[in-house]
């Protein structure tokens, strides 16, 4: 029987990296990611894990080491936040272009300026189009589980993409939660050692990272686009296999009391759990409200999202980042794009909430829904606002 223990989510993430038999870990300290690397370095120093751990001189080098080691066929891991992610942004595009299945946990944090260490999604939205598979998890158990899921998916020869697990900084990274640890034998079965399709070795010399002239670049980009979109069946398959092993089944888009709801909240990340409390309260008051949670950010689950939302009258999309000077929040942009072609579609009201760690409590969701329903009623069907700003 699986063991259920209370532990800090960052520690659980590090334990999962250990259980996934990662070969190379390379990282640079940045709040709120630090506890993961601290614990991993401890595990390696104590000989509990046979891996090479390098605390390097920058995030750019952390990702570069992972790229180098992954290219030799070693399972590689890094994690970062905000400014660190910004510094390694260049290499995130290269890792996916080279089809190297590195795993990175991003403890999501606000991008400066002003400097802030607290949580929102502005960091990862900066590299939204970097070509990695991207999950957003809701709680510690999901972080732990997705370490195994990510490697199994990324290393699949039909996929071969790096994977980001987005977990909200502090809100998840620094809280103690009950985590159900999986037995090592089960993990070894679920996640066999990495068998790279290509690896750097003198016995079979290959050139990796050649440059492309315009005559061939578009073809390489299309190959990447087709492959990332085409990863969807594998994503579902790996989640199914994981569910069969643990009883915890994951889906690209998940719903809560959404089937008959007139107004749907759409969230991504840890605020989904708080939002469900708000939905319960509003249901008790007899209001027709439900919740749609996006777990898979890339490849974006257009079909699943449509299925979950098209029946509703209003969508209240909660973003954790702002596309300054643009269309509002990035999640709302995607939701709008997903349903744009439908003849009958819900109105969308978009809030950016919890910017830089400002608390979003259940009553905030209720306020946002109240506001959105009034605005939509009054004809403002595509509104956007940053929630809770003192003016």
């Amino acid at each position, binding site marked *: 029987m699986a063991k259920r223990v209370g532990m800090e989510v960052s520690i659980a993430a590090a334990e999962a990296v250990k259980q996934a038999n990662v*070969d*190379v870990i*390379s990282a640079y300290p940045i709040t709120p990611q630090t506890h993961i690397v601290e614990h991993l370095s401890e595990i390696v120093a104590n000989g509990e894990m*046979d*891996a*090479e751990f*390098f605390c*390097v*001189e*920058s995030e*750019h*080098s952390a990702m*570069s*080491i*992972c*790229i*180098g*080691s*992954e*290219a*030799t*066929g*070693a399972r*590689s891991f890094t994690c970062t936040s905000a400014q660190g992610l910004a510094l390694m942004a*260049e*290499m995130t595009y*290269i890792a996916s272009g*080279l089809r190297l299945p590195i795993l990175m946990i991003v403890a999501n944090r606000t991008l400066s300026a002003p400097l802030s260490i607290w949580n929102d999604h502005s960091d990862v939205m900066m590299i939204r189009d970097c070509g990695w598979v991207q999950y957003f998890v809701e709680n510690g158990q999901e972080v732990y589980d997705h370490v195994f899921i990510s490697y199994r998916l990324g290393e699949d020869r039909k996929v071969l993409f790096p994977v980001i697990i987005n977990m909200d900084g502090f809100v998840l990274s620094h809280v103690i939660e009950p985590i159900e640890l999986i037995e090592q034998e089960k993990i070894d079965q679920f996640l066999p*050692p990495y068998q790279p399709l290509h690896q*750097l*070795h*003198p016995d*079979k*010399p*290959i*050139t*990796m*990272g*050649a*440059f*492309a*002239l315009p005559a*061939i670049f578009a073809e*390489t980009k299309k190959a990447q686009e087709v492959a990332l979109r085409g990863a969807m069946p594998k994503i579902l398959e790996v989640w199914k296999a994981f569910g069969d092993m643990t009883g915890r089944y994951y889906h690209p888009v998940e719903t809560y009391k959404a089937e008959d709801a007139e107004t749907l909240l759409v969230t991504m990340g840890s605020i989904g759990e708080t939002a469900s409390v708000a939905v319960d309260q509003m249901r008790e008051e007899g209001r027709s409200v439900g919740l749609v949670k996006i777990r898979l950010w890339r490849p974006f689950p257009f079909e699943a999202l449509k299925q979950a939302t098209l029946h509703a009258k209003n969508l209240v999309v909660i973003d954790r980042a702002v596309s300054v000077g643009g269309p509002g929040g990035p999640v709302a942009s995607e939701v709008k794009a997903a349903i744009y072609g439908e003849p009958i579609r819900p109105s969308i009201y978009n809030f950016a909430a919890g910017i830089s760690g400002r608390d979003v409590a259940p009553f905030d969701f209720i306020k946002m829904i109240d506001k959105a329903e009034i605005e939509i009623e009054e004809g403002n069907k595509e509104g956007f606002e940053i929630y809770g700003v003192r003016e």
Partner: protein
Amino acid sequence: MMENLNVFAVRTLTQKEYFAPGHRSCQGCAEALAVRLVCKALGRNIIIAAATGCMEIVSSPLPFTSWRVPWFHCAFENTAAVASGIEVGLKVLMRKGRIPQKKIVTVGMAGDGGTADIGLQALSGALERGHDFIYVCTDNEAYMNTGIQRSSSTPFGASTTTSPAGKTKMGQITWKKNMAAIAAAHNIPYVATACPSYPMDLIQKVKKAADIKGAAYLHILSVCPTGWRSAPDLSIKLGRLAVETGTFPLYEVEHGRYHLNIDFPKLKPIKEYMKLQGRFRHLTEEMIEEIQARINHDYEQLRERDKRGF
């Protein structure tokens, strides 16, 4: 004696080419020659991590490659970090028995821009961590790939497209960064300068670097006719003059001990070196004298270190 050795010893080299002919470098590119010699010296059991730059562009236009050894290019500023990753990956995979035990030399290769400027941080990190690898900087003294812009390795007085000789400024106004000394300051076991005009010296240094456990840094002067505005058939001669004038002395720093490989009792005047290069054409006699004084001073300092040993 060195001259005679160079005549017959070259014939003892392997005929095998790991950097294949047919690449697209300019005529008279001494960097291509340097890379070819490095590969010859190391043989097939290597993995190269290369920086963006001339060598990457001339050797890897998809779907072609000039590399008969595993070759990996990612970006410009992180060659030393990528090489670190390769070294670490090989080490852990061998330890875990997932690939057979075997000596594989990891080589990082970058130009002067990718080393002395944008790649300095990653290089410093890798040298400090002490990865077992060779870092080769092929120094052609400017950003030649993007069109001859100045780097911190461009010599004083040289005219480049971003340090042009104008009415008020006479080309590059800063002195060449001493990368070998910076590498040596990391207390790594082996640092050396080399030039493909002295092929046997270069090859011996590469082999030594491969044998030494830990990080080794090789700084190779690579004459660039396109950027230096020199005749392509003078590249070997210019490399020799660079050494003979004391502009680019050949030396090693082994565990902190300096050793001047070729010492000249009397250096040739740098004018002989400069007059063959269009990039110095605008220099006045006074400026050449100023440069000569600096080179004499630096060379004397190196001689002192050679005598002292540190």
